[in-house]
Each structure stands twice: as structure tokens, then as C-alpha cells.
């Protein structure tokens, strides 16, 4: 579907360039219609990669020269100057437009990178504020416990005071569990903001953020996204977070592996008309059966300095998207994390 759309656009673009050249040919040499070829270049920048844009510019310039040769009316000298001006305008526009689009792309990448960092920071902030909230009642419980022991140790024991202290302990314990219940509620009600996403673009954008890390660790990245996948309806930031989590885990799993065996494989296939299947494989040491059972639990980590949050968050994100996430270990080494997302076959209502 994407390919036919692109072909159609290219045909239109070519038509526009030919049209301008034709008008240029039938008008006098003094009228520099050829300069409007810059419109073709400007449109091309929006839909084509840099090299193709340069090609389009060359075609436009060639057309301008041809139309100068074919034009029969008007002053030849003025025509030559007009043609040169047109050529300079097309070349200049192409150069500036390509530079601008490169800058825009850098801005987008940087913004995505910042968003990722912000999410990680937010997680840290969240953890700190949870720690503070839960610590308050815990401090009160510990202190009341101390007070209670002291009231009981007096001669004779002050039982009414000790009882009061225990009652406070019970109340504060309930308060702590209320705080936790509230946090869980918050996590559950955070609805993803879904939009139509191109699978390959989403995967590539997320993995691009890993480029530096992969390079540093000498890891070969193999991405296989099946052709002609339907778009998915998902929260872009959240899905990219899941992809990043899984890819980062894979990188961490291969730190002890020989350099020439470090391969991170990322696969997306259409498992059934209703389901996309994502798979992230590493060549690490794999997971034992008991580890496989617990990896998605919060605060469980197989890494020495892991927080144990990445996979727990990934699971809640995937489940909020009506998907499933699981892990398989295969012999002799390595693990593969799979997750599914519902696919939308047929034309989406509002393509993005």
C-alpha cells in the first residue's frame, strides 16, 4: 500500500516537472518559467530521501536546459541568462532544502532521545516519592513500637498507653497499604494515548536510540520487519519504551559473551491477521526456569544493579494494549522475549 502511494506521488511529481518544462518551451525565452522547477524540488524533499531529491533536482535542471533548446521564440541571449538563473535557483534551493531537512531530522532524533531520558528520570522521581510516602507511616510504626515497649517495661506496665501505641501502629500500617493501593490504582488508570503507527518506523526509531550503545559493545543488530505489515494502533512512546527495555536487557545479557557472537536480533512478523508478533533475541547465557517465571515481577532483577522495573513496566504497557509478553530460552544459549500487539488489517480510518 505504501509502495503504490509512493509510486503515485513520484508520477505526479514527474508530471509537474514535465508540465513546467512544457510551458517553459511554448513561452518566449524571456519568460523564465523554468525557475518554477524549485516547486518540484521542495515537494520532493518532503517525500523522498536525500539522494533521490538530488536526482530529482538534476532531472529538473536537465528539463530546463532541454526546454531552452527547444524554445523557438524570443531573444537567445536573454534566454540563456534566464536559463542560467533558473539552474542556479534549482541548485541553490536543493542545497538549502536538503540541509534544512537534515537539521529537522536531527531535532526529531534529539527530541526522542530527550523524551527517553525524561522518562527514565521520571521513574527515578516516582520511586523517590513512593519511598518518601511509604516511609512516613513506617517511621511512625517503628517509633510507636519503641514507645509501646517502653510503656510495657515501666513498673507497673502502663497498659493503656501501650494499647494506644499498638492502635496507632495498626492505623499507620493501614495507611501504608492505602498508599500502595492508591499507587497501583494510578498505574492502572493511566490510559495509553493510541495512534496509528507504522511498525517499521516505530521499531527503527526506538532502535536508533540504541545505536551508540550497540556500537560501544560491538553488538551486531539484525532487524527483520516483515514487508507489508498493517499499521498498529498503539501509544508510540510506550511501545518504544518496551522495545528499548527489551533491547537494553539484551545488550546487558551479552556483556560476557565473545565479541564475534554478540548479535541482537529484532523480528516483527504478522502472526495472524489480527496479531503482530515482536521478538527480541540475544546470545547471552539465557534464563533458568525459575528466573523465567519471575522476570516480569516488579523489583525482581537478574542484574546486580537492576531496579527490577523494566520488564514489569513493559508487561503493564503490553497488557494495556491488549497484547501478551513472555520469554523463551533456547539452547545452547540466549533468550528471546516475545510480545504481541493487535494488528489492524484493512484500511484504518485516520492514517497517520
Amino acid at each position: 500500500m505504501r509502495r503504490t502511494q509512493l509510486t503515485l506521488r513520484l508520477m505526479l511529481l514527474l508530471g509537474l516537472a514535465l508540465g513546467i518544462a512544457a510551458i517553459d518551451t511554448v513561452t518566449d525565452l524571456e519568460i523564465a518559467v523554468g525557475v518554477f522547477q524549485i516547486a518540484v524540488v521542495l515537494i520532493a524533499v518532503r517525500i523522498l530521501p536525500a539522494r533521490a531529491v538530488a536526482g530529482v533536482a538534476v532531472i529538473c535542471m536537465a528539463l530546463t536546459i532541454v526546454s531552452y533548446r527547444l524554445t523557438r521564440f524570443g531573444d537567445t541571449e536573454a534566454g540563456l541568462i534566464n536559463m542560467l538563473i533558473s539552474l542556479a535557483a534549482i541548485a541553490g534551493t536543493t542545497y538549502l532544502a536538503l540541509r534544512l531537512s537534515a537539521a529537522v531530522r536531527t531535532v526529531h532524533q534529539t527530541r526522542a532521545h530527550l523524551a527517553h531520558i525524561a522518562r527514565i528520570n521520571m521513574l527515578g522521581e516516582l520511586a523517590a516519592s513512593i519511598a518518601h510516602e511509604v516511609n512516613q507511616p513506617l517511621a511512625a510504626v517503628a517509633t510507636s513500637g519503641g514507645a509501646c515497649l517502653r510503656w510495657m517495661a515501666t513498673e507497673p506496665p502502663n497498659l493503656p498507653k501501650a494499647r494506644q501505641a499498638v492502635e496507632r501502629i495498626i492505623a499507620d500500617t493501614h495507611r501504608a497499604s492505602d498508599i500502595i493501593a492508591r499507587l497501583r490504582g494510578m498505574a492502572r488508570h493511566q490510559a495509553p494515548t493510541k495512534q496509528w503507527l507504522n511498525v517499521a518506523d516505530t521499531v527503527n526509531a526506538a532502535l536508533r536510540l540504541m545505536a551508540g550503545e550497540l556500537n560501544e559493545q560491538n553488538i551486531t543488530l539484525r532487524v527483520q520487519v516483515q514487508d507489508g505489515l498493517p499499521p498498529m494502533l498503539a501509544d508510540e512512546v510506550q511501545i518504544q519504551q518496551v522495545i528499548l527495555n527489551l533491547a537494553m536487557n539484551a545488550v546487558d545479557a551479552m556483556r560476557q559473551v565473545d565479541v564475534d557472537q554478540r548479535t541482537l536480533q529484532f523480528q516483527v512478523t504478522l502472526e495472524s491477521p489480527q496479531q503482530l508478533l515482536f521478538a527480541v533475541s540475544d546470545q547471552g547465557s539465557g534464563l533458568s526456569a525459575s528466573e523465567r517465571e519471575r522476570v516480569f515481577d516488579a523489583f525482581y532483577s537478574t542484574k546486580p544493579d537492576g531496579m527490577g522495573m523494566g520488564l514489569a513496566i513493559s508487561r503493564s504497557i503490553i497488557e494495556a494494549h491488549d497484547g501478551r509478553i513472555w520469554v523463551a530460552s533456547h539452547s545452547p544459549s540466549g533468550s528471546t522475549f516475545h510480545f504481541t500487539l493487535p494488528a489492524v488489517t484493512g484500511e484504518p480510518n485516520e492514517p497517520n
Partner: protein
Amino acid sequence: MSQTDLHDQADSMVYIVDDDPSVRASLQDLLASVGLASLAFGSAREFIDAERPDVPACLILDVRMPGLSGLDFQQEMARLNILLPTVFITAHGDIPMSVKAMKAGALEFLTKPFREQDLLDAITQGLARDQERRKAAASVDALKRRHETLTDGEREVMELVVSGLLNKQVAARLGLSEVTVKVRRGSLMRKMNADSLATLVKMSEKLKVVNR
């Protein structure tokens, strides 16, 4: 503000400033269980505005509070000349913050939940320190009051005597007879309650520190 029933006859006082009511309640009860009177406040502002009894005291302060934070509050206290040994408690103690607190003169920095014995030890130490400070301040006050009873003439003589001049030299300096100097010196020694020149010199040093 809430107070324990030990409050009326208390010979010392522990102030608690924490925004969490259950932490306040449990701390007050813990202190009561070892016979310490306490006053608890939900905010630093309440504490500053409250009327505080004139007894040896110590402060338990939560670092992270809405409004004025514990560390800002400590600076504010220094500005208002409220000199209280302070025990910081925090739910998320980190090293930079505790270093800052210690530098600002905190007695102890405890992370919630803390061992209650650590807190009680810090408070005992704090109260002892405040008592000493008060004693020192009281003796300087008494000295000041005695110094104020001196006449201008006696004060002049005292200044020159403690700087090491002999009666004869003092007399020459002030244009007085040596007898007058001797009379004024005897009277000022009596009024200042000093039994020797050495004691008088020490007293004058203390007064200088206060007046600086």
C-alpha cells in the same frame, strides 16, 4: 500544636516539627514514655510563631516539608537567633543533604524509619548541650548586669587596669590622684564580685566577646 501532659512541670522541652501527624503523634508518645515533655508543630512557621517556655530544649526537624524546608528553616533559625540543638529526620536521607545539615550545626541526622534509641540518645545529648549553653549565657548575663552598675569613672578605671597599667599610671592617664584611683578600683572590684585582678581580666574578656 499539641503538647503532652508532662508539659506544665517540665524542666526541659523537645520540639517536634514534622508535617506528618502520625509521625508527630508517635514521636510525642515515645518521648512521653521516657518522661520527656514535647511540643509538636505541623510546620516550621507554627513553630517560629509559637511561644516557647524558657527551659533547656532541643528540636527534632523533618527535612522535607511543604513550605519552608527543614534546611531553610535551620538558616532562618540562625537568623532569628533561635539557638537549639537540632536532630534532623528525613524519609529520604541522602549524603549531600546530611553533609549540609551537619555543616549548618545539626546534632544528628537520622533516616526514617530510625532506631528510637538513636533518637533518644541524640535528644539527651542535645538537651545537655542546650543546658550548658544556657548556663554560659546566664553567667554572661549576670556579668553584664554587674558591669552596668558601675559608674562611668569606675568603668574607665576598670578598662585601664585590665590592660595592665599600675594605679599610678592610671591616675596619670585620667588626670586623677592615685588615691581616687585606688578608691574607684576597690569599689569596682566589689561591684563586679572579682576577688583578684586575674578574675577581673577574665570577666572583661567575656564581656568583650558578648559586646563584639
